Every structure is written in C-alpha cells, then in structure tokens.
C-alpha cells in the first residue's frame, strides 16, 4: 500500500503547491495598485530587466534570423520558392520563435537575477526588516519587479523578431542575392497584423507574466540559506522554461487552429 500512499502524497503535494501559487498570485495582484502609486520603482526594474537584456536578446535574434534564412533558403530553393524565405522567417519569428526564445532567454538572463536578488534580501533578513517597519515587501519589492518584467518582455520579443527579420534580409538579399522587392512584398502579403503579429504580442505578454511571476515567487519562497537561494535560482529557469513551452503549445493550438 506504500506506493498508493506515495501517489496520494504526490497528488496532494502538487495541489498544495498549486494553491500556494494561486494565493501568492492573488496577493501580488492586490498589491499592484499600491505599488503603482510610485511608478519609479517599476521603471527602474524595466531598466534592470529590459535595457540590460538588450545585448543578449538582440544578438541572439540576429543569429536566429541568419540561421533561419540560410536553412529555409536551402530547403525552399529545391522547390524554386526561394523568394519566400522572408515570409517563412517572418512568420516563424513573429508567431513562435520571437516570444518563446525571448522568454527562455529572459528566464535565464533576468528571471535568475530577480530570484537571486529577492532570495538574498530574504536571507539577509531585509524583507523581515521591512515588515517590521510596516512596509509591505510584496508591494515595495515584488510588485515593481513583476510589473517591470511584464513591460519588458513584449518589447524584447518585438525587438527580437524585428532584428531577426533584418538578419534574414542581410543573409537572403545581401549575401545570397534574392530580389529585395520580392523579399518584402511576399512578406507583406503573407503576414497578417492581427492574426500573426497581434497573437505573437499576446503570447509574449503571457510569457512575461509567467516568467516574472515564477522568478518572484521562487525568490520569495527560497530557503534563507546560500543553498536555498542557489536552488531557487535553478528552479526559476527550469520551471519558467517548461511552463513557457507548454503554454506556448496551448496558445498556438488556440490561436492558429485552422477553422
């Protein structure tokens, strides 16, 4: 009967964790209006999470654009459709790769720093000190970081897609020698603003919520020891990456289902 108890324990544990997440999310939401009264804290977090992530996002976007253009060119040239390289690159970037890869990079670059920062604040008893001074650490520390992440993610995803398309232009038109007019016009005809670009932006906002929430939660719930912070940082990357990939599948199935 031991194994039956193990299954039960696992199920109850997962449910408890889920409930804990939900309550934490609700508490965080309740503090948002208070923290919006001092928007500078959130702006500073946009700088820390967005501006400082620009380099890694832009360089990976450019690299992804280069590689995508080369690979789709080889495949499409077989069918004499090499001019559609731009369209294929644009659709895959705007719909999928832009939001998803940006979210993965964001979890690695910005999510970890959030978790480590909040975890260390907890380990150094700064959060407890705030509570003693009747300052709610959720609205002073967590909410601005959460908001900053949500603002920064869609902007980063847009920049990722835009620079990826420019990279595809460099490879396709300048290096391979496709016709520039065809490159842009086929792209323009095949990409719909609302269906493709709009859904991509919605995706990146959802991923921004997921990544920042996971990072903030793990930091706040970290054990107040060096190992505890280290483990929480690792968990941030693993949990947000897996959640982003799964949610992306669900969102894609909902958004781009053929009627």
């Amino acid at each position, binding site marked *: 009967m031991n194994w039956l108890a193990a299954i039960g324990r696992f199920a109850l544990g997962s449910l408890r964790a889920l409930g804990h997440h939900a309550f934490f999310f609700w508490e965080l939401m309740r503090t948002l209006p208070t923290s919006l009264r001092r928007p500078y804290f959130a*702006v500073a977090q946009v700088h820390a999470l967005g501006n400082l992530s620009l380099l890694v996002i832009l360089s990976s976007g450019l690299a992804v654009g280069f590689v995508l253009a080369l690979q789709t060119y080889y495949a499409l040239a077989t069918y004499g459709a090499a001019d559609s390289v731009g369209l294929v690159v*644009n659709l895959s970037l705007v719909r999928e790769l832009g939001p998803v890869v940006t979210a993965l990079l964001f979890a690695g670059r910005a999510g970890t720093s959030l978790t480590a920062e909040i975890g260390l604040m907890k380990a150094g008893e700064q959060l407890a000190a705030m509570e003693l001074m009747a300052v709610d650490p959720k609205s002073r520390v967590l909410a601005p970081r959460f908001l900053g992440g949500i603002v920064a993610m869609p902007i980063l995803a847009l920049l990722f897609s835009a620079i990826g398309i420019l990279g595809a232009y460099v490879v396709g038109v300048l290096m391979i020698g496709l016709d520039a007019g065809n490159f842009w016009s086929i792209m323009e005809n095949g990409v719909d603003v609302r269906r493709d670009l709009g859904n991509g932006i919605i995706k990146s906002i959802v991923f921004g919520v997921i990544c920042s929430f996971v990072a903030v939660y793990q930091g706040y719930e970290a054990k107040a020891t060096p190992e505890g912070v280290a483990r929480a940082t690792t968990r941030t990357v693993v949990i947000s990456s897996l959640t982003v990939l799964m949610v992306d599948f669900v969102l894609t199935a909902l958004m781009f289902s053929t009627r």
Partner: protein
Amino acid sequence: MSRKGIETLVGGFVLLGIVALVFLALKAANLSSFSGDETYTLLAKFDNIGGLKVRSPVRSAGVTVGRVESIALDPKTYQGVVRLDVKKSVQFPADSSARILTSGLLGDQYVGLEAGADEKNFAPGDTIKQTQSAVVLESLISQFLFNKAADAGSTPAAPAPATNGGKK
C-alpha cells in the same frame, strides 16, 4: 545612476520597442496595404471556390484592388457566396465578370475581375452575374484521363501486364 538617467534609458528602450512594432506592422506585414482606403462590397457566386481564402486578394489586370471579406455557402443553390471588399476608387461596369485564378502553378488563388463594357457601374452590394469557378486539378486530370481512355478504346491497347513484366 541617477534617477533621471535611468528614466531616460527606459524611455529609449520603450521607444525602440515602438519602432520595432511599427517596422513589423508596416514593412513586414500587410497593415499598409490600403487599410486607409474606403471600400464597397460586391457579391459573387461560384460553383466551386477551390482554395480561395478569406483575405485573398481581388485583382483586376493583375493589380490588387481589394480583398475577399467572407465566404459562405448559399443553402438554396449550394453555391459558394464570396463577399469582396473593393476599393472605392475603382468602379467596375455592371457586366464585369469574376473568375477564380491561381497565381503561378502552385501559388495562392485570387479573384480576378474583368471589366465589361456596360455604361452603368456596380452599386455597392450588387452581385456579379458572370462568374467562372476555380479549376480543380483533380477534375482536370480525370477529364484528361477519360479523353485518353476514350481515344485508346477505339484502337487495340497494349496488354497492361506486359509493362510490369520485369518487376515482381
């Protein structure tokens, strides 16, 4: 860093994002294609619309003058009813005809409008009377094969197994 400095940097970051959005929307997507122009509606009924989709282009002489707005099935005649959004600046004579054509051998399908000679123009909401359905490749091939078979039927055909004889 000073508060002002950080705020300036974040402002630049947001501005960069807006530039990316404008670039993606205007240069790399179809927002710029006559979204500002006013349009009027024409209806066309086809026996078979083939692979026509909503938002497929409407072209006249190869120039894009509109988009397919919606596609539905007429429950009485079992014809496909295609609603076309055509630019206001382009008026067509009332005896113009619509055809479903394919750009290139494997390209997307579009509605081709051919101007007639009538003095009156279509009023918004009119139905185009002369239409020609999409060419379905399967029916074309089967027609071709039946013709071949009919030709072959008159002359004694070579025994079919002979061609397969070498293989198992």
